[in-house]
C-alpha cells in the first residue's frame, strides 16, 4: 500500500515536472511570437527592404541616364520601356515589392517582378496611386519620403527617393497582411499558459491531499492496531474508498472476534456445567451408597456413628464446592485500601507453613528500601495468594522449594510465587484459568480461576510466567507512590 502511494506521488511529481516544461515551452513560444510577429518589427523590416530597393532603383536610373546621352531625349513611352527593364532587374531581388519612377508628373518604369503573375501587373496600383504620387512629390522636394497605410487586413508601405543628379524619383511599395491573428494567438497562448499553471496547481493540490490522506490512513491504521473498535475518519477524496474499505474490513473483523468470543464463552459454560455436574454427582453417589448401607443397618439395628460421618463428609464436600463456585460467580463489594504488601504476604506464608508437607517456603524482597504498597482488598489478596501458595507447595512436593518474591516493576508491585515443580505444558497454560480445569485427582479446578477473578476485581493482573524453567505465577498490582 505504501509503495503504491509512493509511486502515485512520484507520478504526480513527474506530472508537475511535465507541466513545468509545458509552461516553459509556452513562455518561449509567447516570447518568440511577440518578437517575430510584432507589427513594429514587420514595419521595420518593410522599411528596410523598401529603402534598399529605392536606393538601388535610384542608382540604376542615374546609371541608365548617364550611359546614353540620347536616352533622355527619347519619348516618355520609350523611356518607360527602358525603365521597366531596370525596375524588373532591380526588384526581382525584393519579394513582394513593386515600384518604378515618377518623372515630370508621370509614372514610368513600373514593374512588379515577384508578383504571382508579373505580366498582369503592368501599371501603378490604382488604390495607392495618389499616395505614391504624394510621397514621390515630397521626396522630390526633400530627397526622400515615406508613408505607412494601416488597412483593416494589410499594411502598405510606400517609400520614395530622389534619383542622383536627375529630376526623377524612384519609388517602391510593399504590402503585407496584418497579423490580425496575433491577438488571437496571444490569447490562445495565454490561455495555454494559464491551463498549464492550473494543471500544476491542481497536481500540487492533489499531491497535498493525497499526502494528507495517506497520513490520516497511516494514523488510523496505527490506532486500529491498538483498538479495533476505532474507525478511520471518512473522507470524500480519492482515498475515501480506501478508508471505507479499511473500515469495512475492521467491522468484519470486529464481528468475527465477537463471534469467536461468544463461541468461547459457550464452550467455557459447557465445560463449567459438565465439571459442576461431575463434581456434584460424585458426593451424591457417595451419599446414596451410604444411605443404602444405613438403611440395611437400620433394619438390623446395627447403626454406628461412622456410618453417618461418611454422609456428612460428602455433604461438607458439596458445601465447599458451592462456596468456591459462589466466590467465583458473585462479585462482592471490595474493601480496597492502601496496604503494605509484605505483611500480607508474610501472613499468608505463615498460614501455609504448617501444611506444607516438608517443602521450604522462602520470601525474597527486592527493589527500593521503602515498603511496597498498593491499593488492595486485603482479604481478596490473602485468598488469592493462599490459593497460589497451596498450589505451589503441592506442586513442589516433599523437599521441594517455594519462593515468594516481592518486587517493584515500573509502576507496579509484583508478587511472584515460584515452585520447583515442572513448568506447565502449552495446553495447561491455555486452559489454566478456566473454571473446573484441573490436573489434580481431587482438585475442583476453581482455585486459579477464583484467584484471577479476585485480582481482576482489584484492578490487577494474574499471569503465568513461562520460560523460567520453573512454574511461576505473578500477581501484578498498581503501586502506590509514597512521598
Amino acid at each position, binding site marked *: 500500500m505504501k509503495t503504491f502511494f509512493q509511486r502515485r506521488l512520484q507520478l504526480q511529481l513527474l506530472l508537475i515536472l511535465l507541466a513545468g516544461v509545458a509552461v516553459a515551452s509556452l513562455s518561449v513560444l509567447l516570447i518568440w511570437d511577440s518578437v517575430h510577429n510584432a507589427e513594429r518589427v514587420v514595419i521595420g523590416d518593410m522599411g528596410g527592404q523598401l529603402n534598399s530597393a529605392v536606393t538601388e532603383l535610384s542608382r*540604376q536610373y542615374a*546609371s541608365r541616364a548617364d*550611359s546614353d546621352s540620347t536616352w533622355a531625349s*527619347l*519619348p*516618355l*513611352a*520609350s523611356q*518607360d*520601356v*527602358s525603365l*521597366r*527593364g*531596370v525596375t*524588373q*532587374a532591380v526588384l*526581382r531581388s525584393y519579394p513582394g515589392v513593386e515600384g518604378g519612377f515618377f518623372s515630370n508628373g508621370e509614372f514610368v518604369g513600373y514593374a512588379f517582378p515577384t508578383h504571382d503573375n508579373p505580366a498582369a501587373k503592368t501599371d501603378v496600383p490604382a488604390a495607392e496611386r495618389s499616395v505614391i504620387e504624394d510621397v514621390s512629390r515630397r521626396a522630390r522636394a526633400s530627397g526622400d519620403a515615406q508613408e505607412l497605410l494601416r488597412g483593416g487586413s494589410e499594411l502598405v508601405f510606400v517609400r520614395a527617393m530622389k534619383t542622383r543628379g536627375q529630376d526623377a524619383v524612384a519609388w517602391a511599395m510593399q504590402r503585407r497582411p496584418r497579423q490580425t491573428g496575433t491577438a488571437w494567438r496571444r490569447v490562445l497562448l495565454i490561455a495555454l499558459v494559464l491551463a498549464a499553471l492550473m494543471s500544476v496547481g491542481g497536481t500540487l493540490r492533489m499531491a497535498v491531499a493525497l499526502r494528507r490522506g495517506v497520513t490520516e490512513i497511516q494514523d488510523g491504521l496505527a490506532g486500529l492496531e491498538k483498538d479495533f473498535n476505532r474507525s478511520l475518519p471518512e473522507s470524500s477524496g480519492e482515498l475515501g474508498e480506501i478508508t471505507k474499505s479499511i473500515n469495512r474490513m475492521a467491522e468484519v473483523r470486529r464481528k468475527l472476534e465477537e463471534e469467536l468470543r461468544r463461541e468461547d464463552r459457550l464452550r467455557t459454560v459447557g465445560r463449567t456445567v459438565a465439571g459442576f455436574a461431575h463434581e456434584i454427582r460424585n458426593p451424591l453417589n457417595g451419599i446414596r451408597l451410604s444411605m443404602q448401607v444405613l438403611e440395611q443397618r437400620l433394619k438390623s439395628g446395627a447403626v454406628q456413628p461412622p456410618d453417618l460421618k461418611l454422609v456428612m463428609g460428602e455433604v461438607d464436600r458439596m458445601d465447599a464446592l458451592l462456596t468456591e463456585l459462589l466466590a467465583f460467580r458473585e462479585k462482592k463489594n471490595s474493601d480496597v485500601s492502601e496496604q503494605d504488601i509484605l505483611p500480607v504476604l508474610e501472613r499468608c506464608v505463615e498460614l501455609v507453613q504448617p501444611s506444607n508437607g516438608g517443602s521450604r517456603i522462602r520470601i525474597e524482597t527486592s527493589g527500593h528500601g521503602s515498603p511496597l504498597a498498593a491499593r488492595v482488598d486485603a482479604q481478596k489478596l490473602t485468598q488469592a495468594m493462599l490459593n497460589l501458595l497451596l498450589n505451589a507447595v503441592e506442586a513442589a512436593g516433599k523437599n521441594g522449594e517455594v519462593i515468594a518474591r516481592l518486587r517493584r516493576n515500573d509502576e507496579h508491585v509484583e508478587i511472584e510465587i515460584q515452585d520447583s515443580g515442572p513448568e506447565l505444558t502449552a495446553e495447561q497454560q491455555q486452559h489454566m484459568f478456566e473454571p473446573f480445569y484441573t490436573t489434580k485427582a481431587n482438585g475442583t479446578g476453581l482455585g486459579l480461576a477464583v484467584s484471577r477473578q479476585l485480582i481482576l476485581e482489584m484492578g490487577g493482573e494474574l499471569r503465568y510466567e513461562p520460560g523460567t524453567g520453573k512454574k511461576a505465577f505473578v500477581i501484578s498490582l498498581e503501586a502506590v507512590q509514597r512521598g
Partner: protein
Amino acid sequence: MQTVRNRLAQVRVTDKDAEDLISAAQRELGRAQGKLGGNEIHAADRLQAAADAFVHAAEHSLHLADGPKGPVPQPGEIADHLQRVYFRLQQADFFARASGEPEAKPLPGFARKYYEEARKAYDRGGWFAADEYAKSADDTMRGLENLAQAAVPEPPPPPRPR
C-alpha cells in the same frame, strides 16, 4: 539607315554568332524601312537603332581577330563595365518579350554568351578580349532595348498651342 546599310555591307562575318547578329540587323533594318514607308517614324527610328546595335555587337567580336588598334581599357574600367552589363542582362528577357518579335527570342542568349566570354577573358587577364566581348554583350542588350521601344505605340502628338 543608309549608314547602317553601309556598315552591313562592309562587315566580315567569321563566326556563326556574328552571322546571326548580322542577320538580325538586316531583318530589323528591313522592318525599319517598312515602318518608315508607313510613316511610323518612332518605330522606324528604334528599329534602325536596334539594327545598328546588332552590327556593332558583331563588329566587336570580329575585332578580336584583328587585335587591339589603340589603348586597351584598364582592368578596373573593364570590371565596372562587366558589372553594368551583368545588370543589363537581367533585363534581357523582359525586353525580348516586350518587343513582341518571335525572332528576338534567341538574342538574350547571345548577350549572355558574350558576357560569359568576357568574364572568362577577364579572369585569365585578356583585357582586350574582355573589353570587346563586354561591348558585344552591351550592344546586343541595347539592340534588344531598342526593339522593345519600337513595340511601344506611337506617342500622341503634342497638343497644338491655342
